[in-house]
C-alpha cells in the first residue's frame, strides 16, 4: 500500500475543506497540507448552492439582528456563543472571498449587493446571480492552487480514519482511477465531507452527498448531534428534487395553491402583501413553508404533476422578464430545460424535498471534536449554529467562517502534536483495506445495493418526513436495522478495481445506513415538536422543560445507536415563541419593550 505522510490532512474539498486548506496554508506555510476529495474539488456539492451567503453589511442592519434571526430560526436549539462568533465573522469572510475574486453581484456604484432571504429580517444575503455556491467554490478552488504547501488527492475515496492511541492520525484512501489503496498519516485531521441528504428519496443534493464523514467519525466514537433535524426545502422540482433557490422568493416570487391563492396567509405567515416583507409569507423560514405545503396537500389544494407528485406553484411572472433573467438565470435554465416551462409566463410547480442536515459531527466552537486531532467543518459538522432549523444562506457563511477556524486550529494542533505513529497506523490501514476488499470480493447473497438504497430512502421519507408519527418512526428504525443486516450480504456485480463505481456506491451505502439510523433514532427519541422536527402524535408542542437539549447519537457496532442529551448554551436570548408574519412582529416589539423598559 502506498503511504504519504503529511502534517494536516483535510478530507473533503468542498467549500469548507478548501477554506480550511487555505487557512492552514496561510497560518502555517511550513506545514504540509493534504487535501482529499472523492471528486475533483469543483464538483463538490457546494457548487449547487444558488441563493447566497449571509453577512451583515447594510447600515440599518446589525449583528444582533443576524444573531436573533439565527437563534429564533433554529428554535433556540443553537449554541449562542457559537452563533455570536459566527455572525461577527461572516462579513469578513465574504469580503475575503471578494478579494479572492468571487464575482458577487454589484450595485450600480460598485459596492456588493445583498438580497432578502427567508427568515432574515433584513437583506444580508450576498449573492452571485443564482450561482453563489458555484462561484464561491470555484473561487476557493482556484485560489487554493496558489499555495504550494497544499497537495491534492483528487478522486480519492476515504474508506476509514486512522485512529491510534485515542488520536486521529490519518486516513485510508481508495484511489478511484486505480482501485488501489493508500494511507495518509498526519498530525491533525479535518473532516469537511458535506451533508447526507441522499439518504432521503426526493432531495436537492448531488449524488456524492452521502454522509461519509459523519459515518466515519461516528464509527470511531464521535457522537452525531441533532441528527433528527433534517431540512426540507419548500421549492424543489417534483420528481428529481432539483432546487429552485430561495432567491426566487427573495426576489419577490409568490407561492400559490391550485386555486391561485397565496395559501401561506392561512398558516400564520400573513398578511399577504403584494411585496412580501422579510419574515412574512413567502419569506418565512423553510420548515414553516414546507409544513404549510403538507397541510395544503392534505386539504387537496395542490396540483398534480405529470410525475404524479403533488405540487404548489412558484409564481415569478409579476417580476417581469428582465428581472427574472438577470437575477435568476439558472432558474430560467432549469425550468425551461428540465421542465419545459418558461417562468416568465408560467408558474413553476414545486414541492418540498430534503435539502440540508442540520446535525452532524459534534464539535466545539473551535471545530474540535471530542476525538483529539479530529476537526470538522461545514455541513458534516454540528457546531451548533443551526439548531432545529437552518436559515437559508447561513450555511455558505458557516463553511467560510468555520472552514477557516478548522484550518487554523488543525494547523495549531499539528504544530504541537507528536509525529504520527506510522507503523501502528499502517497496520490499521491494512486492516481497513482488507475490510473494503472483503465487501468487494465477498460472495454475498446476491442482493444488489441499489435495492437497499431505495428501501432506505423510502423508509426515511415515510418515517422522518415533514411531519412525524411515533409508529412510523419506529417502522423506519426497524427497517433500517433490517437493511443494516442485509447490507452484510450484498453482492457487487463488478469485481474489477479501476474506476469501480459499483463498489464505491456500496461503500457509500454503508455510510448512509449509519447516518440514517442516527437520524431515525434521534427523531423517535425527541418527544416534542421543534423546528424541522414536527410530530403529530401528541407531541405537537415545543417542550423546553425536557427537550431544550441537543440529542447525541452514539455508535454501537452491530446495534442501533444509543441516544443521549447535552445542554444548550444560552447566553442572551432566552427561548421565546417562534413566530413569523404579523405575530412575529408583535412579539419582537414586546421583547424590545421589555428589554428597554
Amino acid at each position, binding site marked *: 500500500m502506498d503511504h504519504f505522510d503529511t502534517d494536516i490532512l483535510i478530507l473533503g474539498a468542498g467549500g469548507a475543506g478548501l477554506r480550511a486548506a487555505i487557512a492552514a496554508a496561510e497560518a502555517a506555510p511550513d506545514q504540509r497540507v493534504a487535501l482529499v476529495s472523492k471528486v475533483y474539488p469543483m464538483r463538490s456539492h457546494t457548487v449547487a448552492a444558488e441563493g447566497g451567503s449571509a453577512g451583515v453589511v447594510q447600515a440599518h442592519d446589525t449583528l444582533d439582528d443576524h444573531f436573533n434571526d439565527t437563534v429564533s430560526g433554529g428554535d433556540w436549539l443553537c449554541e449562542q456563543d457559537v452563533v455570536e462568533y459566527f455572525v461577527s465573522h461572516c462579513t469578513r469572510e465574504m469580503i475575503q472571498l471578494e478579494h479572492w475574486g468571487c464575482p458577487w453581484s454589484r450595485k450600480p456604484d460598485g459596492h456588493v449587493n445583498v438580497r432578502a432571504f427567508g427568515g432574515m429580517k433584513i437583506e444580508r444575503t450576498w449573492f452571485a446571480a443564482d450561482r453563489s455556491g458555484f462561484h464561491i467554490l470555484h473561487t476557493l478552488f482556484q485560489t487554493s492552487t496558489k499555495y504550494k504547501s497544499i497537495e491534492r488527492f483528487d478522486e480519492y475515496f476515504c474508506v476509514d480514519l486512522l485512529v491510534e492511541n485515542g488520536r486521529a492520525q490519518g486516513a485510508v484512501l481508495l484511489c478511484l482511477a*486505480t482501485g*488501489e489503496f493508500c494511507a495518509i498519516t498526519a498530525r491533525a485531521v479535518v473532516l469537511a465531507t458535506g451533508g447526507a441528504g441522499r439518504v432521503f428519496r426526493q432531495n436537492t443534493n448531488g449524488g456524492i452527498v452521502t454522509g461519509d464523514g459523519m459515518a466515519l467519525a461516528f464509527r470511531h466514537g464521535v457522537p452525531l448531534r441533532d441528527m433528527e433535524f433534517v431540512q426540507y426545502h419548500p421549492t424543489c422540482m417534483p420528481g428529481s428534487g432539483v432546487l429552485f433557490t430561495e432567491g426566487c422568493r427573495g426576489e419577490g416570487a409568490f407561492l400559490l395553491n391550485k386555486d391561485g391563492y397565496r395559501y401561506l396567509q392561512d398558516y400564520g405567515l400573513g398578511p399577504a402583501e403584494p411585496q412580501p416583507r422579510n419574515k412574512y409569507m413567502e419569506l418565512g423560514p423553510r420548515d414553516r413553508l414546507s409544513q404549510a405545503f403538507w397541510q395544503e396537500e392534505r386539504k387537496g389544494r395542490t396540483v398534480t404533476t405529470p410525475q404524479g407528485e403533488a405540487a404548489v406553484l412558484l409564481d415569478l411572472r409579476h417580476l417581469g422578464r428582465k428581472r427574472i433573467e438577470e437575477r435568476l438565470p439558472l432558474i430560467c435554465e432549469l425550468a425551461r430545460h428540465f421542465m419545459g416551462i418558461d417562468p416568465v409566463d408560467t408558474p413553476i410547480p414545486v414541492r418540498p424535498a430534503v435539502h440540508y442536515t442540520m446535525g452532524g459531527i459534534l464539535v466545539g466552537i473551535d471545530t474540535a471534536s471530542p476525538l483529539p486531532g479530529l476537526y470538522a467543518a461545514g455541513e458534516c459538522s454540528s457546531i451548533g449554529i443551526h439548531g432545529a432549523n437552518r436559515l437559508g444562506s447561513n450555511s455558505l457563511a458557516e463553511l467560510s467562517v468555520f472552514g477557516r477556524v478548522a484550518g487554523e486550529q488543525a494547523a495549531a494542533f499539528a504544530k504541537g502534536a507528536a509525529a504520527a505513529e506510522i507503523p501502528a497506523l499502517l497496520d490499521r490501514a491494512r486492516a481497513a483495506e482488507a475490510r473494503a476488499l472483503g465487501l468487494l470480493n465477498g460472495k454475498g447473497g446476491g442482493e444488489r445495493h441499489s435495492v437497499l438504497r431505495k428501501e432506505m430512502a423510502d423508509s426515511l421519507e415515510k418515517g422522518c418526513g415533514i411531519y412525524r408519527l411515533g409508529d412510523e418512526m419506529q417502522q423506519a428504525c426497524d427497517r433500517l436495522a433490517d437493511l443494516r443486516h442485509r447490507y452484510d450480504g450484498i453482492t457487487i456485480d463488478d469485481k*474489477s*478495481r*479501476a474506476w469501480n463505481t459499483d463498489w464505491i456506491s456500496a461503500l457509500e451505502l454503508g455510510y448512509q445506513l449509519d447516518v440514517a439510523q442516527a437520524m431515525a433514532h434521534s427523531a423517535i427519541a425527541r418527544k416534542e415538536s421543534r423546528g424541522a422536527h414536527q410530530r403529530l402524535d401528541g407531541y405537537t408542542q415545543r417542550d423546553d422543560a425536557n427537550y431544550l437539549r441537543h440529542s447525541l447519537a452514539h455508535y454501537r457496532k452491530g446495534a442501533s445507536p444509543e441516544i443521549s442529551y447535552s445542554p444548550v448554551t444560552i447566553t442572551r436570548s432566552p427561548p421565546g415563541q417562534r413566530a413569523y408574519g404579523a405575530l412575529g412582529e408583535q412579539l419582537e416589539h414586546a421583547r424590545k419593550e421589555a428589554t428597554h423598559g
Partner: protein
Amino acid sequence: MSERRPYVRRQSRLWWASRTYRGYTLRELSGVGVAVYGAVLLAGLDSVRRGPDAYAAFVGWLSTPVAIVLHLVLLAAMLLHGLTWFQTLPKTMPRLIVGGQAVPQKTITNAAIGLAMLCSLALVIGALS
C-alpha cells in the same frame, strides 16, 4: 501493478471531412479561393503590362465558360469567406461594453457585413460609372 490502462483513441485522419467539421474545412478552403483570385488579378494586370494583344487575350479568356465557372466559384468563395470572417471577428476582440452591457456578437457581425456590402457596392458602382 495497477489495473489502470487509459485507452487513447486516435483522432481520425479524416476528421476535417466529417459532418461536424465540414463547415470549418470549407471556410478554410474559401480562403484559398482568395489567393487564387489574387493570381487572376495578377494575370490581368500583367496582360496590360504586356500590351494590347495580351490584354485582348485576357479579356477574351474572361468570357470563356471556364473563366465564368471559375469566377462563379470564386464569387461563392468570397461570399463564404466574408460571411465567416465577420462571424469570427467578434471572437477575436474583447467584449464590447456599451452602457454597462455587452454588445451582442451578432450586432458586431451584422454591422461588419453591412460595411462590407457598402464597400463592394462602391466598387461595383465605381466600375459601372
